[in-house]
C-alpha cells in the first residue's frame, strides 16, 4: 500500500505505527510458515524417492518355466538355493529339489531324490530294464490360487502383487497348517526360527532385476524365470512353443511353474 510504503521511507514512525508494522510482518511470517514447511517436506520426499529403488511390483507377475528334457540332474540349483537363502544343509529342508524318475519295462516307476539331488544321483540299474528316465526339478509353484495362503490362520503367508508367495517370519506362529495344505510338499518348518519356510523365487534378487539363484546356476537353461504376462520374454517364448503342464491341475491351485515335456508319471 503506497501510503504505508511512503511512511516507511519518511521520519521514524510513532511506536504504535512501528508495532503495527511488526505485527504485519509477523503475520506474514506465520502465513508463510506452513508453505515453507510444505516445500521443505516435498523436497525431502523428492530426495528420498530419487534414492529409492524404482521397482514397481504392479508391473510384474512372476512365474517359472521348466524344461524337463533339459534337466541333467546335476543338483546345482538345489545347492545354490541353500547357499543363497541360508537354508539348513540337513537333508530334511528343501526350498527346491530334483527328483529322478526311472520307469522300468516291467511297469514300475521308481522315484528318488537323495538329499534333494544336491550331491548328484547314484548310478542306477542296468539300461536294459529302463523304459524312460528323466529328472524333474521341483519347487514352490507360487500358485495364483494358493491353498497355503487360504489356510494360514493369522495372515503370515501371502501372495504379493507381483505374484510371489512369501512368508512373514516375524508374524508366523508356527502352526504348520500351510505345510499340510501344500499339495506339492514345497514347505517345511525351519528348525531354528520355528516358522514356515519355502522358496521365495529369491525375491530379494528379483526386485533388483536379478533371477533366482536356481535359475542363475542351471547349466543347461532348464529353468526359465520371467513375467507370465509379458508379451516378449524368455518365459513367454517358453509357453508359446512348448506344451506346458502344471503339477496336480485337478486341485485348481493355478500353479505358475510350467513344465514342458512333463511325463504323466510325475506327481
Amino acid at each position: 500500500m503506497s501510503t504505508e510504503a511512503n511512511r516507511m521511507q519518511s521520519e521514524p514512525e510513532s511506536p504504535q505505527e512501528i508495532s503495527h508494522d511488526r505485527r504485519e510482518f509477523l503475520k506474514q511470517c506465520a502465513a508463510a510458515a506452513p508453505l515453507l514447511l510444505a516445500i521443505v517436506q516435498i523436497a525431502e520426499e523428492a530426495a528420498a524417492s530419487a534414492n529409492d529403488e524404482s521397482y514397481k511390483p504392479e508391473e510384474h507377475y512372476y512365474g517359472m518355466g521348466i524344461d524337463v528334457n533339459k534337466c541333467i540332474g546335476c543338483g546345482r540349483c538345489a545347492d545354490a538355493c541353500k547357499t543363497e537363502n541360508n537354508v539348513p544343509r540337513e537333508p530334511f529342508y528343501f526350498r527346491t529339489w530334483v527328483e529322478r524318475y526311472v520307469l522300468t519295462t516291467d511297469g514300475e516307476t521308481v522315484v528318488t531324490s537323495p538329499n534333494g539331488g544336491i550331491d548328484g544321483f547314484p548310478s542306477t540299474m542296468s539300461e536294459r530294464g529302463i523304459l524312460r528316465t528323466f529328472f524333474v526339478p521341483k519347487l514352490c509353484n507360487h500358485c495364483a490360487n494358493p491353498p497355503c495362503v487360504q489356510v494360514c490362520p493369522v495372515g503370515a503367508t501371502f501372495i504379493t502383487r507381483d505374484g510371489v508367495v512369501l512368508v512373514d517370519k516375524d508374524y508366523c506362529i508356527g502352526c504348520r497348517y500351510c505345510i499340510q495344505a501344500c499339495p506339492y510338499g514345497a514347505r517345511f518348518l525351519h528348525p531354528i526360527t520355528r516358522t514356515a519356510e519355502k522358496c521365495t523365487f529369491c525375491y530379494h534378487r528379483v526386485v533388483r532385476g536379478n533371477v533366482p539363484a536356481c535359475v542363475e546356476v542351471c547349466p543347461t537353461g532348464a529353468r526359465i524365470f520371467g513375467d507370465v504376462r509379458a508379451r516378449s520374454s524368455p518365459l513367454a517364448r517358453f509357453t508359446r512353443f512348448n506344451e506346458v503342464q502344471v503339477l496336480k491341475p485337478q486341485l485348481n491351485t493355478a500353479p505358475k511353474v510350467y513344465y514342458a515335456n512333463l511325463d504323466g508319471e510325475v506327481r
Partner: protein
Amino acid sequence: MQDIAQQLTNILQQVSGYIYPNEVELQWGLLVVVYPYITGLVAGAFILASLERVFNVKEVEPTYRLALLTALAFLLIAPLPLLLHLGHPERSFEIFLTPNVHSAMAMFGFVYAWYLAVVLLLEIWFDYRKDLVLWARNERGLRKWIHLMLTLGATDLSEQSVEFDRKAVRFITIMGIPSAFLLHGYVGFIFGSVKANPWWSSVLIPVVFLFSAMVSGIALVLMLYLLTGLVRRSFEMTCLDKLASFLFYALVVDFSLEILDFIHRLYEAEESIKILGTMISTRLFLSLVVLQTLAGTVLPLICLAFVSPAFGSRALVRFPDELRRLLYLASATLIQIGIFSTRWNVVIGGQLFSKSLRGLTVYKMELLGLEGFFVAVLLMAAPFFLLYILVKILPPWKEEITTPVPNRFRAIDL
C-alpha cells in the same frame, strides 16, 4: 538341532518308497491328536447335558451338572496342547487380532471364546446361581467368599429371578447344541477341507468327528458318574442304563458313518487307494483295525447291544447290576481307547503317506520333550484334577445342597 537331525536321519532310513524331501518330518504330532480328543469330550459331555435339559430325558438328570463341569474342565485345558505345539506360542494371540476369515483354524479363537464364555460359563452360572447364593449365606470362611464372588452380586432369589434363571438355562442349552457342534465340527473341517491330502479331504470327516466326539463324551460322563458314584456310594442304576443306551445309539451312528466312508473310498478307488491301503495294512494296522475298529467299536457295540436297555425298557440279556456296571465301565474304557485311536489315525495317518502317493514315512513319538508322551499324559490327566477342584467348589451332587430344593421341573413356590 543336533538331536532333531539325528531323529530325522533315523526316520529317513525307515522311509519306504518315495516321499517328498520335506515330508520326512511329521508336522502334526501327538499334541495335535490330543486336542481334538479333548474338544470332542467337551462337545460330547455338553450334548449329553443338553439331552436332559432340552429333550427332557429325566433319567440322566443326575449327570447334568457333572457333565457341565466335565465339559468346563476339559475346555479349559483344551488350548494347552495347541499352545505347546506352536512354533511361537507367544504369538498365538495373533489369531484373535488378525484372523484370516478364509482359514478354518482361525475360527478357533472365536468358537472357543464363544463356547467358553457364552455357552458353558453362562449356563453353569445360571444353573448354579441360586445354590451359590444359598451356599454363600450358610457358609463361612474362604468357601463363603468364593461362592459370593461367583454370584457376581446377583443375589436376588425372588420367584421371577429364579424363573429367569431356568429360562436362561434352557435358552442357552438350545443355543449351545449347535455351538458344541461348531466347537468340534470346525476341527473336523480343518482336516476335511485340505484338498492336498486325500486321507483327510472328505465331506464326512467333520460329521465323523462330531459323532465320535459325542460317543467319547457320553462314555466319559458314564465313567465319571459310575466311578464317583462308587466312591460316594450313591448313584442311580436307571441313570447308568440310560447313559449306556445313548452311548449305544451314538456308537451305531458313528460306526455307520465310518463304514460309509470306508465303503465309499473302496468303491471309488481313486488314485490314492493303493498307498492308503498299504498304509492301513502296514503302518496303521494296530491303531486302525485292532484298536479303533475291533476293540474300540465292534466289541463295545456288541456288548452294549446285549447288556444295555437300548432296544426297549429291558436289555436283551439281563445281567445283575454289578456285572452290568462292570461291562459298562469296560465298554466305556474301550470306547475311549477307540476314539483316541480314531483321532490318531486321522491326524498321524494323514501324514504317514507322501503326497506323491508313492511312499510312507514313520512317526516316532518322543517320550520326553514338549511334544512327548509324558506331556500328553499330563495334558490328559490335568482336566481330571481341574474337575476335582471344580467339583469341590461347585458340588454337582443333589444331596449336598443344604437347603431343600423342590423338584426343578416344577415351578418354584416360595
